[in-house]
């Protein structure tokens, strides 16, 4: 069976650095941090990390009430990012209901704010009578995918990946596989997430959050740095239009890159501790799909959330595969860890690097930690021709996901 080729023909983003892709890219280019002190979070007893990277919710009222009523914060982000991506791709609305266009949008656990509100309504008196019908649709783990599909009238595959911080990468990978297999022509893929004290709290309980920079928010997170102390949660949505190559050529679409490899796997070792061997295996399999070797890779966009253990394992995995030649950077210092949206938001920035011929540095990486040495950390903007790049992700649950993208030159 001849597998189809899959290209990226549109991007859309709502991020902590702004409500569209240009503001995200500009913010990164300017070395801006979107991390801030979260007013009001002090009221949560036991919450030690009081920093976050919020995105701005705006213009949601432009969505008609009948569609808007089932959307919570993360669905608004996802719908707006998807609209941007569709507009960028030039795909026409009439094609969306052909059955050949679908969406896969992941998140960590659905609408955190809506979930919290539902419990706050129900639990004090154990009374369900004040729960609205719409609360369910705002909460569920497929809320973003469901709302995007309904709003746009999509009639193809509609799915939601849920693998915490690897959710968006798995969504992109699943979309890639569906198009490769000829099941769909176009897939709207990515992730969405919302910032909420209960989400940061979940990581805080596990001692995975940054707690030492509440008075200097923009100095954290610090991927690969000696002074790193954990992750900072962010929010937003990144959506990419994945399209069958010939389909894109026929309509003369702009092609950002071709997805040439993908793999996802479990570590089978530990629910929370990242595992270098599983990462190496995942990255190797993704490159095998792409028929490339580590020597063909020009840039690695690391997951690197600034946790002590995760960064060390990832640096070891990258060192094992790529040595100290291939530039590596993490984007978490700019926008925090957008969890279920991180794989897609960071891929969008990486595609901009590919287009502009530059590697954006790891913000807040000032002194490389001894346990993260041996790889080529990018600490200042680097003019660099990126023909092939790898996006790495891993998540609680021992889940890994890696994507390989290649520049398409003949257009």
């Amino acid at each position: 069976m001849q597998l189809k080729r899959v290209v990226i023909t549109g991007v859309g983003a709502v991020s902590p650095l702004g409500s569209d892709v240009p503001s995200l890219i500009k913010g990164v280019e300017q070395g801006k941090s979107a991390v801030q002190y979260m007013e009001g979070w002090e009221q949560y007893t036991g919450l030690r990390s009081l920093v976050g990277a919020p995105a701005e919710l705006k213009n949601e009222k432009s969505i008609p009430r009948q569609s808007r009523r089932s959307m919570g914060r993360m669905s608004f982000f996802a719908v707006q990012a998807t609209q941007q991506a569709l507009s960028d791709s030039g795909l026409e609305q009439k094609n969306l209901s052909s059955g050949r266009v679908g969406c896969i949008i992941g998140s960590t656990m659905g609408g955190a704010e809506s979930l919290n509100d539902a419990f706050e309504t129900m639990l004090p008196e154990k009374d369900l009578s004040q729960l609205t019908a719409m609360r369910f649709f705002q909460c569920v783990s497929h809320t973003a995918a469901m709302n995007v599909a309904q709003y746009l009238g999509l009639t193809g595959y509609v799915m939601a990946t849920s693998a915490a911080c690897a959710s968006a990468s798995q969504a992109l990978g699943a979309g890639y596989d569906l198009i490769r297999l000829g099941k769909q022509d176009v897939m709207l893929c990515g992730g969405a997430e919302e910032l909420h004290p209960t989400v940061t709290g979940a990581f805080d309980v596990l001692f995975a959050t940054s707690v030492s920079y509440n008075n200097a928010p923009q100095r954290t997170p610090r991927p690969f740095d000696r002074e790193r102390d954990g992750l900072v949660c962010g929010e937003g949505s990144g959506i990419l239009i994945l399209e069958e190559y010939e389909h894109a050529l026929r309509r003369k679409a702009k092609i950002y890159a071709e997805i040439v490899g993908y793999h996802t796997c479990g570590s089978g070792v530990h629910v929370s501790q990242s595992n270098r061997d599983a990462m190496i295996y995942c990255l190797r399999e993704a490159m095998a799909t792409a028929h490339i070797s580590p020597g063909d890779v020009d840039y690695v966009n690391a997951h690197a959330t600034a946790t002590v253990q995760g960064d060390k394992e990832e640096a070891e995995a990258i060192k094992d595969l790529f040595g100290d030649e291939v530039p590596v950077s993490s984007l978490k210092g700019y926008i925090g860890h957008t969890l279920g949206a991180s794989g897609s938001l960071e891929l969008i920035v990486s595609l901009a690097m590919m287009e502009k011929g530059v590697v954006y540095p790891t913000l807040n990486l000032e002194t490389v930690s001894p346990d993260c040495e041996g790889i080529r950390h990018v600490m200042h903007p680097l003019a660099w021709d990126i023909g092939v790049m790898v996006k790495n992700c891993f998540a609680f649950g021992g889940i890994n996901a890696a994507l390989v993208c290649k520049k398409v030159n003949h257009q």
Partner: protein
Amino acid sequence: MTTTTEQEIITLTNQVFEESFEIEKEKLQPQMNIFEDLGLDSLDVVDLVVALQEKFGVKIRDDERVRSIRTLGDIYQFILNLKTGGASAIVSDQKE
């Protein structure tokens, strides 16, 4: 029941339609069918019940009479009946 209280029911019910369903004030007339004229559907009715419960401090989720509501006037009358035990009517052309 006083006229003021009847007016309060109309005002508070209309508030629910403006706040929860974003319906323009001008359309909020008693003869309006909440489905055909005001655009609500079955899911909205669930939320309408929740909003009315909160607004009027009543429990109506399991009240069978909710199923027969069709117009905004039906809601005014339903709430009035709850508040007065059915002893009064709210719309001038309805018999007491």
